Structure formats: C-alpha cells, structure tokens
C-alpha cells in the first residue's frame, strides 16, 4: 500500500478550486443579506444582543458587522471593508458592503462559466477607475463659493447622512448642530475635540450643542456643595496630582522615640498637603481640576476659599479642556505660572436631566464643542451617538474635499450609464464584465427601493430613461416613491464617500475573487491563529481546552 503523505495537521480543513470560490461568494451573500435592509432612509434597524445580554440597536453597517462577529474568512473581508469605510469616511458603510456583495454575486455566473478570476478583477479595476474619473466630473465643487453656500452644502450632506438613522425626524436640527460643531474646530479638525455626552431622560429635541467643554459632575466629597458653582473668566488649573492626605511613600516607616516627635510627624504630613493647597490658592485659580482624586480635606479647603474643584475628571475631557482653555496639565503644584493656567469666559455647573454637568464655555484657545444627547433609553442614545459620529465625519471630510454629488441613487445610475456606454466601445470579455459592473452599481438604488417597499424594477426603468436623456441628477424620492432631481431635493452626499465606496468594494471583491484555496486550521486554534485579528470572543482563551461550542455554565 502506498504510504499516505500527511501534509497538514489532522483536523485541518482545506477547500479549493472553483467550487470553493463559489462557496466564498455565497458566504459573502449571507452577510450582505443581513445588512442590506439597513440601507437608505427607509432602512430598518437591527437589534443585536450579545452573550452578556448587552443590547445594541443600530443602523450603521460597520457597527452591525462588528457586533455580529463574523468568522468566515471571506465574509470577514466584507466586515473589514465596512470597518475601514467607517474609519476613513465615517459614512456609507452599508453601501460598501452591499455593492461589494453585488459585484461578487454578478461575477458568480462568469466563474461558473469558466472565466478566469484574474480577467474579472482586471475588468472590475478598470471599471472602478473609470467610475472614479466620472465621479470627479459629476461632483460639484464648492471650494470657491461663499461661506453661506458652503454652510448649506455641509448641512445637506449631514442631513443626507442622518436620513437613514433613527434621528431622521430631527435631522435639520442635528445637521445644523453638527456643522456648527465641526466648523468651530481648528483647521486641522481633530474629531477628538468634539465630545459627545449622553444624559438619559428628556426628549431628543432637548439635545444641545455646547460651544466649549462639558462633563458630568465628578464624585465629590462633603463640602463640595458649599463651593461656588458659577464663575466668569475664572483661572483654571489642571492637575495630575492627588490632593489627599496620604502617605507620601508607599513602604516608608517611621520610628518615633518619644511622644513629642509624634505630633511632629502628624504635622509634617498635614503641612505637605496644606503646602500644596496653598500654592494652588496662591495662583488665584478659581477652578481646580485634577485627573486624580481630590480628597475631602482639599474639597473643604477650597470650599472655604470659594474655589471650585473636581477630582477624577475623565482624561479625554480634561485633555479637551486643556486644549480649549490653554491650561496644561501639571504633575506638581510647584511653579504654577501664568502660562500653565487656562481660562474661559463662563464656568457653570448646571442641571441636565437627572445629572449635574460642568460647563466651560467661551474658550479662548482651540475650538471645541460638546454634544449633550438626550433620549429615552440608553440604546437610543448610543445609536444617536453613532449617527452623529457619522455625520461629523461626513462634514469633516466634505469640508476638506468640498465636493458633493447627488444622492438617492442618482450618481450610481449616472455612473452605470456611463460605464455601459464605455463598454460598448471595447472588445473582448471585458465588455461583458464592465457591463456587469455597471449593472452592479444599480444595486444601491434598487435596494433603496426595496427597503422602502417600492417597485424597484419600475423605478429603475424610469431612472434609466431619465439618465439616458442626460438628466444626471435624477434619483429616487423616497418620501413620495417617485423619481426626482435629488440635487434639488437636497439629498447630497460628499463625493469622497462615494469614491471610497467604489474603490473599497472593488478591492474587496477582487480580493475575494482571487482566492482559490482556504486552509483552515483545526477548530481549537481557530480563534487565535488565522482569523483572530478581530478580537477574541469571550470564553475562548486557553486555546486547546476543547472549547468547541461548549455551552457556558449557568
């Protein structure tokens, strides 16, 4: 008997060839099916509960895919492009997955007929390149326009982005807020300078934009309530010092010979902290903030001298505050000179819902803004936060690139038309393939229709007819279920989002098409070896403990 050649470890799963490719595509299809219904203003939300019972309600493609914890290697690629779209432009995460899925689906028949995947991907890349060029022509640039016009463009882009979200009902209000927040930032537009805070209770319309920094009242000791809660033009000190009566060195030990010395030690300890406090007071600061704890003694000391203090301020808030007020964090209270002390126009502690918040407004240095989201439930506010993040990103990117294209599927239809026209001028297999790419582009308007419960075929036909007669900005009006000029109906999208959707989806599709073999290690290592990059799920540590889908103990 011929000896068996063992190449791979036992339990390793391999599959290859055409059938493998098809099966990869099918797997991707399954993922696309999950997010497909979230696309567009009539898209629905998903409720996802994880093992620990945490519930997330979301409409954001990237969030959904992240929470689904996709492990199929090919399908994971789609989850990854959604993630990268989110990181890069913030919006269009569902579109990118849907489009990539459609490209793959349409290539399936070519694969089955024996077209080499390389040819397919080459043609797709070509088509993608052409679309990007066309997109640039179609986009309207507002770089040279007046500030008012820019403002409207930005607001419209933000509104379009918010259209599909839970907060669509208040999109005008939020779009305005987002644009205001982003435009108040410095030219480098560090998104970290926009804080988003959530306070349960109240209705969505009670949400507000604070031009400055706001954060929740920190844990306070007795005496805090006696401190003044409002200042105008206060001096602000930011510290990284523990203002508490405590042992200076961890393992130090003092030996005392006589009882007289005892009082000396006690006094010495007190004088250390009093010294610190005195130095702070000497600067004339009225607001003392610290990353570390401010103890009860210090709280009362400050209360005595009409100074406001807050200990254990979250680091990110403190960072924003420092940038905004010009204060810099000090790890010692020595040398608190004028240049490390910040200021703002108004400091105030105010009630927001059931919480008390510290507001710092009118900051002289870096511009910063804070959203305070109000809403009925935690999930609702979480989703609002994600939506706002998307909108902020969109506005930020648009500010930089200042180009917009009509939304509502209009730009996809136009690109599709242009590609078809181009396809007719070339020979060979690529003609078919580029037409397929063009057809795949139609998935966006098609899905928009399907989600809204409209007759997709009917509407796409109308759209094609309009685009054929050179009305390039005609898209779907989902409120009436008809077609309209989306440019006029103010459904604008930043061209950057579209560009990224096209290129990322094409890349991903080509990548998946070019895989002809997958070698999967045995299950027990699965989590940590090949595809574990996306973070380990709970209960998977310790690899070989036979942890194959065993039920968790109750």
């Amino acid at each position: 008997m011929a000896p068996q050649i063992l190449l791979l470890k036992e339990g390793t799963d391999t599959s290859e060839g055409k059938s493998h490719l098809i099966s990869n595509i099918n797997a991707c299809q399954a993922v696309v099916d999950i997010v497909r219904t979230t696309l567009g203003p009539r898209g629905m939300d998903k409720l996802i509960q994880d093992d620990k019972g945490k519930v997330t309600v979301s409409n954001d493609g990237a969030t959904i895919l992240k929470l689904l914890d996709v492990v199929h290697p090919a399908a994971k690629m789609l989850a990854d492009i959604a993630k990268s779209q989110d990181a890069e432009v913030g919006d269009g995460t569902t579109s990118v997955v849907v489009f990539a899925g459609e490209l793959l689906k349409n290539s399936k028949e070519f694969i089955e007929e024996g077209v080499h995947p390389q040819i397919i991907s080459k043609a797709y890349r070509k088509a993608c390149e052409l679309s990007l060029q066309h997109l640039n022509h179609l986009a309207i640039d507002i770089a040279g326009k007046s500030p008012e016009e820019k403002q409207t463009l930005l607001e419209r882009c933000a509104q379009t982005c918010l259209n599909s979200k839970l907060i669509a009902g208040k999109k005008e209000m939020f779009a305005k807020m987002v644009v205001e927040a982003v435009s108040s930032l410095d030219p480098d537009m560090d998104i970290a300078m926009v804080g988003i805070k959530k306070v349960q209770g109240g209705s969505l319309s009670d949400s507000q934009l604070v031009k400055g920094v706001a954060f929740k009242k920190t844990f306070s000791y007795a005496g805090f309530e006696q401190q003044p809660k409002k200042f105008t033009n206060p001096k602000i000190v930011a510290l990284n010092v523990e203002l508490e009566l405590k042992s200076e060195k961890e393992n130090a030990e003092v030996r005392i010979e006589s009882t007289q010395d005892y009082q000396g030690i006690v006094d010495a300890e007190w004088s250390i902290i009093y010294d610190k406090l005195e130095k702070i007071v000497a600067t004339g600061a009225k607001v003392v903030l610290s990353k570390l704890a401010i103890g009860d003694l210090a709280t009362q000391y400050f209360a005595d001298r009409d100074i406001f203090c807050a200990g254990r301020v979250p680091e990110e808030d403190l960072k924003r505050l420092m940038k905004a007020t010009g204060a810099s964090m000090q790890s010692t209270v020595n040398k608190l000179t004028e240049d490390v002390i910040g200021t703002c126009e108004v400091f105030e502690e105010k009630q927001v819902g059931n919480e008390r918040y510290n507001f710092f407004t009118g900051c002289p240095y870096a511009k910063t803004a804070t959203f305070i989201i109000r809403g009925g439930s935690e999930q609702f506010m979480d989703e609002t936060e994600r939506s706002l993040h998307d909108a902020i990103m969109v506005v930020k990117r648009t500010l930089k690139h200042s180009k917009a294209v009509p939304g509502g599927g209009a730009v996809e239809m136009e690109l599709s038309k242009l590609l078809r026209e181009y396809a007719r001028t070339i020979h060979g297999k690529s003609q078919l393939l580029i037409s397929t790419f063009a057809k795949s582009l139609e998935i966006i308007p098609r899905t928009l229709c399907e989600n809204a419960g409209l007759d997709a075929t009917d509407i796409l036909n109308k759209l094609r007819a309009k685009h054929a007669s050179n009305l390039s900005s005609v898209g779907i009006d989902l409120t009436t279920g008809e077609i309209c000029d989306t440019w006029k109906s103010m459904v604008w999208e930043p061209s950057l989002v579209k560009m990224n959707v096209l290129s990322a989806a094409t890349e991903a599709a080509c990548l998946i098409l070019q895989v002809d073999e997958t070698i999967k290690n045995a299950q027990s290592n699965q989590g940590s070896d090949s595809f574990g990059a996306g973070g380990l799920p709970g209960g998977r540590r310790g690899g070989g403990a036979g942890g194959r889908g065993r039920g968790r103990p109750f």
Partner: protein
Amino acid sequence: MSLIFDEYGRPYIILQEQERKTRIKGLDAIRSNITAARTLARTLTTSLGPKGMDKMLQSQDGDVTVTNDGATILKEMDVENQVAKLMVELAQSQDDEIGDGTTGVVVLAGALLEQALILLDRGIHPTKISEGFDKACEVCLDKLEQISQKIEFNENSYDDLVKAAMTTMSSKVVNRYSQQLAEICIKAIFSVADFERKDINLDLIKVEGKVGGTLEDSVLVNGIVLDKDVSHPQMPKAVDNAKICILTCPFEPPKPKTKHKLDIDSVEKYRDLQKAEQEYFRDMVQRVKDSGANVVLCQWGFDDEANHLLYQNGLLAVRWVGGVEIELVAMATHGRIIPRFSEISEKKLGRAGKVREVSLGTTHDHVIFIEDCANSKAVTIFLRGGSKMAVDEAKRSVHDALCQVRNLIRDQRIVYGGGSSEIACSLAVSEFADKVSGVEQYAIRCFADALDAIPSALADNSGLSSLETLGALKAAQTKQNNSRLGVDCLGLGTLDMKEQNVYETLLSKKQQIQLATQLVKMILKIDDVIGPTDALT
C-alpha cells in the same frame, strides 16, 4: 441562525458560535417585539390614575415593595426581554427628567404599539408608520401648548401649586393626606428654590422616613434631621442657639498616614504615652469648648474617653454622621467643615436655633432635629407611617410631588389632567389626519386612537364604562369646545377638571408624548433581532 449550506451540504460558519444564535427578522421581529412591549404596558395599565391599583413586588431577597409608581414597578420587575427593557428605560427616563407620569408614558407607548400592529397587518411600511406618528406627535405638542394655562403663584399664595402636587399624589396610597403633604412639599421647594435661575437642587431637600406614627405626623423640618442619637445618654438633649462644630476628624490621637512605630522600652515612656494620649483628648475638647461651640457633630467615632470629656464639658455630641449629612448641616447652618482640631475657630461654627433629640413613640429610636438654621436652604421632610412599605411609598410619592412642583417653577404652564388633555390632543390629531394625504393618514388616525388609551384606562380603573365615558367626553369636548373635560374618576359629579383641581404640568405631558413616540419609532425600526438562543426563546 438561518443556516445556509454549500453544495456538499456543509453549513457555512459565518458568525462566531453561530449555532447558539437566534435570529428573527422582518415583520416577525417587529411583531414579537411589539408583543413583548405591550405585555409589559398592560401590567401597568391598571395602576394608572387616582383609582389605580398598587402592585406588590417581592425581590429576590424577599423585600416587599408596594407601589403604583410605574418606574419603580418596572425596575423591580427585573425584565429579561431586550425590548421590554427599553420600556423600562423609558419609564426611567421620564422619572429622571420629570419625576412623574411614569405609568402614563408606558401605557401610552403600549397603546401606540398596539395601534402600530394593526397598521402593520394592513401592510403599511413601518417607517411610514413612524413618520405618521411623528407628525401626529408634533400636532399633539402644538395642541398641548394651546390648551395650556399659566398659573400664578408666589411664596404666599400657592393654591394652584398645591392642586398640582395633590394631583400627583392622588393616585398614591398617601392620597388621604395629600393636602398636607402637598403643602409640605411646596414649602420645602420654596425654601431651596433659586427663583432667579429657576434652578432647584433637589439634593437640598432631604426626605427622611421613620416607621411609626401616622402620615399625619409627617412634618417639614426647617433644617436637618439626623437619624442618630446623642453619643452619651447624659448629655443635654436640647440646645438652644446652638453653635455647631462640624468635624471630619475623629476624636482620637491623630494618626499619621505613613507607617509608623513607636518604640516603648521603659515604664516611663509608657506613662508618657498615656499622658500624651490624654493630653490630646483634653486638648481637643478644650479647643472645641474654647471656640464657643455647644454642639459637636463628628463624621467619625469618639473614644469613650473623649465621649466622657465631651459630656463633662456640657457639649451635645453626635458621632458617625454620614458625609452627605455633614455637608447638608454645614450648608444649612453656614458652618464650615473642619478637618482638624487645630483649625477650630468661632467663625467656622455653624449656627442653628435649636438642636434637640427626639424619641419616637415607644421605640428606642431617636432622631436629632437641627432646626431654625442660619441658612434655611436645606430642609428635611420627615415622614412617618405605619409600616416600612407605607413609608417607602410615601417617600416615592413625595419625590413625585417635589418633581411636579419643581417643574412648575421651571415652567409655569399646566394642562388639565383626568385624560382631558389626551382627549383634546386626540381630537386635534384626528382632525389633522383628514388633511393628510397618503398612507400616513392611517398612522396619524391610529395615533389619535392610542391617545384615547389614557382616558379609557382611567375610566376602566375607576369602574366606569370606558367606551361610554370616552364617547361622551369626546362629544362634550367638541360641543362645548372645552378642553378641560376629563374622566370623573372620583365621582365628584363634574367633568370639568379645573373644578376638580386636577392639574398636570405641561412639561410632563409633552415629555410623555415625545418619549413614547420616540420609543415606538425605535421599536418599529427594528426588523432583525440577533441574539443568543436562550435569551430569545
């Protein structure tokens, strides 16, 4: 999880631990979500209104709560279902923001969902329903603004405020004493309110309860009540013109935080030590005495030795006073919190007209009243009641009433209760529905129907025929063009809620409708539920 198979019949493993996940999607998901939320809402329906019933809830530890406060019921129910949890949060956020109307908001959300289900069965797209509800909500808010009335009050005449606070309490067990409690609440709010900024820090009102006596014995203490007793039985039990020394350091020899060790190698040294210790005590008490204080409140304990010395010096001392109380006392008496003995000075002492220890009934319980403080900006509502449950429920009711009054100070507009404003909104919404073209019309009309749920639940709970009452009320409101007509729950013979003195704040009503609509929109937008198998079945 919906499984798909490749051509060899092997399942795709697409998601992590996919076999343990369940997925419901499409209309089924919406339907199952609505059913869950509705079930929860139905539990609360019977608690609505002055004739609403209470629920008895037993926690895992066997603690029993009796209440008809929506937020409390839901919190104690410990629901598992994720959509039902959203309802719980809904009630919670109404509680956080307004403090009252928690039952109403859940009932309304339940009714809206019920209507949404009918619409879904007719094949209307969920987002269309949301849009319709949204429009209807706007109409309601406008209508509420229209029918709202501004009430006037000041520190001397606050009849309307009393009525509003009484409305809140009318549905609670405490309703027999609502007049008295309402006045207590209003006085409490007035003494802490900052009318200029319209800001009221409810933290300054302490609600303290003790079992024993009846609710009638509840009082508003112009100062602080400490649930503590005097540290030494022979100390004076009452001090007039008290000067209070508020300490956050223990009556002990000071301890350095650094590790230390005292070497004692001879008898002399030991004696020295003992002497020094005594010296410390004497010195401490002397300092307190010298400053002119006659009451000592300490956050920490005293040594017996110190206790004795304090007693000998004729001081009234209280030990182990909590940090929050210390702060409140300091604010109320204009005192400063003193962190160490060497800083005691006369200037830092707090002043109060009277400090006394009171024993309650025949029990050995003592409480300390600190009254007529220099700054009346901190007050205590001291509640008495026959049982712990009754006291707890009274506390919740007082909290609701306090919130109600606070909201009225923020916004003086009121609407009339008894379901009258809902009926008015319902009429406005149905009228509006006729003007809307498109599918939304149906949704808007259903919104109007959902609004009827509140008055009809009120009627049901009061033993009236809901359909009859509702019909009559709607007709009467339209005919007389009087939006004050509501359900006569108490059988007083008039439908006019102004005469019945049933007032609710505009803020609360608006918030109820907005929050309920928001939640319903959120639930309607979910078409896919993915979660662990055991959680969904």
